Every structure is written in structure tokens, then in C-alpha cells.
């Protein structure tokens, strides 16, 4: 769907993205990185607002810049808060959906459906000038999905939403992805995205640091031991067994004999072996977690080393 091949974009002496190559297909992909990482530049290249300085950017095999054939199949929710404050939310969505080529009954039904989907039916006929930040995010999402695009690109779509709103928007995006759409979501808030997808593109200072499944990326980082925490009433006995495993680097138990913290460089082998040990020795396990499998940890490892 979206393909960047050695794409770079400079603004005079300032770099936006540098030699980025990646492909994004159906499903939800999160574009992650701190502010200034180049996320917005990448999205603006993909949505045909910018041209790459070098390299190529393609969507559906075509150059997206000012290309109606590409834009017809694209829904874009920009980061900006500014909207047309003097018109209603419904007029806003209608205007942009007309520009996407819909008209008549189909236009009206698609506009109403998308407004309902983002939970804005009650406020759609109010002027946008009176909207809260969360309402603005929702109506922006409505205009992006109203014409049923194949690719949905959303720049920080969860900003300004309350927890309920975040969950609702996440559900809308999941529905889109389940219907075979390509959904790209940029964010600098890792835990928000973590709930949405495990497929990530990680950027920092204009470069693409990593792409793929968060667990696969984490497993590739062998420089850093993988941390695992196990809660068990038999922590001491469990720790002794685990220490015998050749791929476990260290084991630490708390004084209350209820928790084991270990480090391993081969998490997959550990995950294979662990159930065997527990069952063989009849050890009760109350909880099992790996704090390193979350995005925050992956991000810190890749960005900070």
C-alpha cells in the first residue's frame, strides 16, 4: 500500500526524514517517535502534501503528491486543531466528503454513519467553534473515514481525548483494520499505541530505527538482557530451578519469598522451557510478566542505547 524507498526530505539545512525505506500494508501500524522524530514529515510525504528531496514515496504504486487517483483512496486526519469554526461539524464532514466524490443519498448516509461512528451525532449540528478538543478530534476522524478510504492515516489521533474517547477511537480503528484497511497511526505516547497494535515503525531524528512486531524487535535487541518477573508463593524453589538454565543470566528473589526477577538473553528459549519446569516441579505461579515487552522499553533501548 505505502512504500518509501530511500526517501529523504530536507527543509533547507534542516532534516525531516533521512534515507527511510519501509513498506506499510493492511492492518494497524503505529508510527512512533519523540517530537521532531520525522513522523509528521513521513505522513505528509505519504499523503501527498510534500515531495521527497531524494528517493521515492509511493501509495498504491503511484506518487501521491497532488494525485487525485491516490487521494481518492486516502483518508487523512491531521494533527492540527484548527478547523472551520464557522460551520457545523456535519457541514465540515459533508464538504470534505463531497470533495471525495460522494453525492446524493450515499453522501448523506455516509456522513451520518461516520458521525455516528465517532460518537458525534448529538453535536454534529453545532458550530465547530464551540467544540472541545476531544470533539474536534472526533469530527476530524469522521471526515477521514466518511468516504470509506482504503488507507487511513492519522496524525496523533488520540490527543485531547479522554480515556473513554481513546477506547472508542481505538475501536473504530480496529474495525477499519479488520475490514482490510491500512491504518497508520502516529503517536509519541507509547502506552496509547500499545493498546492498539503491536506493529510499529520507530523513528528518531529523521531515521527509521525499527519496523515490525514489537516482540520481534525486542528479541533482536540482544545487547540488553530481557527482564522477566514471576510471582509465586514458592519463589525460592522456582529461582533455584531457573538458575540452572544455561540461558538465564541472573535470578533475584525478594525477602518475602513471593517474587522472582530474572534476566535472560534468549527469551524465546526461556518461554519454551518455563512451563516444563513449573509442571515438573509442581510450582504455583500467580503472575508472569515481562516489563521489557512493552513499547516504552523497546523505545528506550533503541533510542537511548
Amino acid at each position, binding site marked *: 500500500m505505502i512504500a518509501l524507498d530511500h526517501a529523504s*526530505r530536507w*527543509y533547507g539545512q*534542516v532534516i*525531516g526524514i533521512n534515507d527511510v525505506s519501509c513498506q506499510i500494508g493492511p492492518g494497524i501500524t503505529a508510527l512512533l517517535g519523540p517530537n*521532531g522524530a520525522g513522523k*509528521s*514529515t513521513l505522513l*505528509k510525504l505519504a*499523503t*501527498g*502534501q*510534500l*515531495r521527497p528531496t531524494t528517493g521515492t514515496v509511493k501509495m498504491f504504486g503511484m506518487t501521491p503528491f*497532488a494525485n*487525485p*487517483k*491516490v*487521494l*481518492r483512496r*486516502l483518508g*487523512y486526519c*491531521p*494533527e*492540527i486543531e*484548527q*478547523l*472551520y469554526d*464557522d*460551520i457545523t461539524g456535519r*457541514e465540515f464532514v459533508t*464538504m*470534505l466528503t*463531497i*470533495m*471525495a*466524490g460522494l*453525492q446524493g443519498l450515499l453522501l448523506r448516509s455516509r456522513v451520518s454513519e461516520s458521525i455516528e461512528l465517532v460518537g458525534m451525532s448529538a453535536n454534529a449540528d453545532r458550530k465547530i467553534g464551540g467544540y472541545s478538543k476531544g470533539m474536534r478530534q472526533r469530527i476530524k476522524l469522521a*471526515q477521514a473515514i466518511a468516504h470509506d478510504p482504503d488507507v487511513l492515516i492519522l496524525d496523533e489521533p488520540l490527543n485531547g481525548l479522554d480515556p473513554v474517547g481513546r477506547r472508542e477511537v481505538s475501536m473504530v480503528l480496529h474495525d477499519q483494520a479488520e475490514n482490510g484497511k491500512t491504518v497508520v497511526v502516529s503517536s509519541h505516547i507509547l502506552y496509547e499505541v500499545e493498546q492498539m497494535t503491536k506493529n510499529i515503525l520507530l523513528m528518531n531524528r529523521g531515521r527509521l530505527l525499527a519496523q515490525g512486531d514489537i516482540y520481534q524487535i525486542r528479541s533482536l535487541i540482544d545487547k540488553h538482557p530481557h527482564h522477566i518477573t514471576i510471582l509465586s508463593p514458592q519463589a525460592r524453589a522456582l529461582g533455584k530451578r531457573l538458575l540452572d538454565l544455561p540461558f538465564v543470566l541472573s535470578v533475584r528473589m525478594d525477602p518475602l519469598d513471593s517474587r522472582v526477577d530474572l534476566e535472560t538473553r534468549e527469551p524465546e528459549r526461556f518461554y519454551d522451557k518455563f512451563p516444563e519446569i513449573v509442571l515438573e516441579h509442581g510450582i504455583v505461579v500467580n503472575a508472569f510478566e515481562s516489563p521489557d515487552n512493552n513499547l516504552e522499553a523497546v523505545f528506550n533501548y533503541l533510542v537511548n542505547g
Partner: protein
Amino acid sequence: MTDFCLFKYATRDLLRSRRLLATIGLVIAPAAIVMLLKFGRHGIDPVSIYHVFTPALVFGFILVILSVVFGTGAISQEVEQKTIVYLLTRPVPRWRVLLPRFLAAVLVTSVTSCLAALLLAVVLLGPRHLADAPILRDLLILPVGAAAYGAVFLLLATLIHRPLLWGLLYAFGIESWAPYFPGIQKVSLMAYLRVLAPHTALESDSVDLRDMISSLTPAAISTSTAWWVLGLVTALSLAAALLAFSKREYVPREDAE
């Protein structure tokens, strides 16, 4: 349907509440000034007053200022508010995004300046004696001026940053003075508009500096030349603006970073 929709929303945008008030103010201003100064009581011929006020206030100020504001605003307002992103990521050729906005700007400028001229004539002459002044000719030429100025300022907005500032400098610098100076007269659109809509000067003992300079140079622009030049300026500026808008990037740098 897309074109009509864009035209409708662009027109509505131009006539938002605050702007509408300012526009109504401009429509009323020439007539209000005439009424406040009570020219009629000084025994001056109302037709002569019309000939003085229409070129100075309607052509020279209202037409030009509205053309600058609405012509540049057709695109620069969207860029400054960053809402242009919504228009540029829709499957509509960019020239078709810009053209309805230009037409809306020309329509609003034309209607406003024509209403100002008409109201001025009604206040000065009364509804029954409108034919004494060249009001019909002015109502024809004002939209021509709105189109020419609108296209020039639209081109300016597609090419440079802060087009409003540069547009105002051009409008009240070159356009205010060039028509009166030999040599540079032909770079001013107002010079051609004055040929198409000439107004006789008020007879007076004192002479305006610009009229004095103007009197030194005989009228060198024919009516047909004026039509051709205004037509060409409108067409070429509009075409160049549509082309530039189709090719250029309109993403503020701070956003892109």
C-alpha cells in the same frame, strides 16, 4: 457538485460575521461621507461630486482593498490557519480547489464595490436621476477591475509569504501613484480602469498634485488597449496562480518538522 460546494463555502467564509460587518461598512462609507459633509448645501453639482468620489473611494479604495484582502485571502487564509491540509488531501485537482475560491473572491468584491457605487449615486442624485451619472458603466467596469486585481493578488498569494502585506504595499503604493506619472503609468491596473470608466474632475481653483502631474501627459491608453491589457492580466495571472498552486507545497515548515 464539488466546484459549487467549494464556491459556496468559500463565499460563506469571505462573509463571516466580522468580515460581513466590515464589508457592510465599506458599502455604506462613501454615501455616509457624502451625507456627513453635506456637499449638497454648498451648491456643488451632485453629478460632479459623484465623479470625484467614485474614482477616489469606490475604485481607488474599496475595490482595491477588497481585492487585496479577498484575493490574497483565497489561499493565504487557509495556509495561515493550516486548514489547507483538508483541501489538499482530497481527490480534487488543485486548480479546481483554487478556482472556485477565486470566483467567490471576485463575486464578493464586485458586489460590495458595486453596492457602494450604487448607494453613493442614490444618496447624491436620488433614485430618479441615477441616469445623470455614469453609474451603469461603473457597475460594468467594477467587476472587471475586481477580476483583474483579484487574479493578480491571488497569484501573489500562491507565490510568496505574507501576500497581504505585499499586496497592500502594491495597492496603495504603485496603484495609488503610478496612474498619474508619465512612464510608469502603464504598470498600474488603475490606469486602464480609468480609461474604461473615466470621471471628470471637479472644477476648482486649487489643483491636486497628482492631477497636475497627470495633466502633463496626454492620455496614451486607448479603450481597446485597456480592455486587452485587463483581460490579459486577468487570464495570465489566474493561469499562473492555478499552475503555481498545483505545483507548490503548502505545508508550514514548523508543521512538517
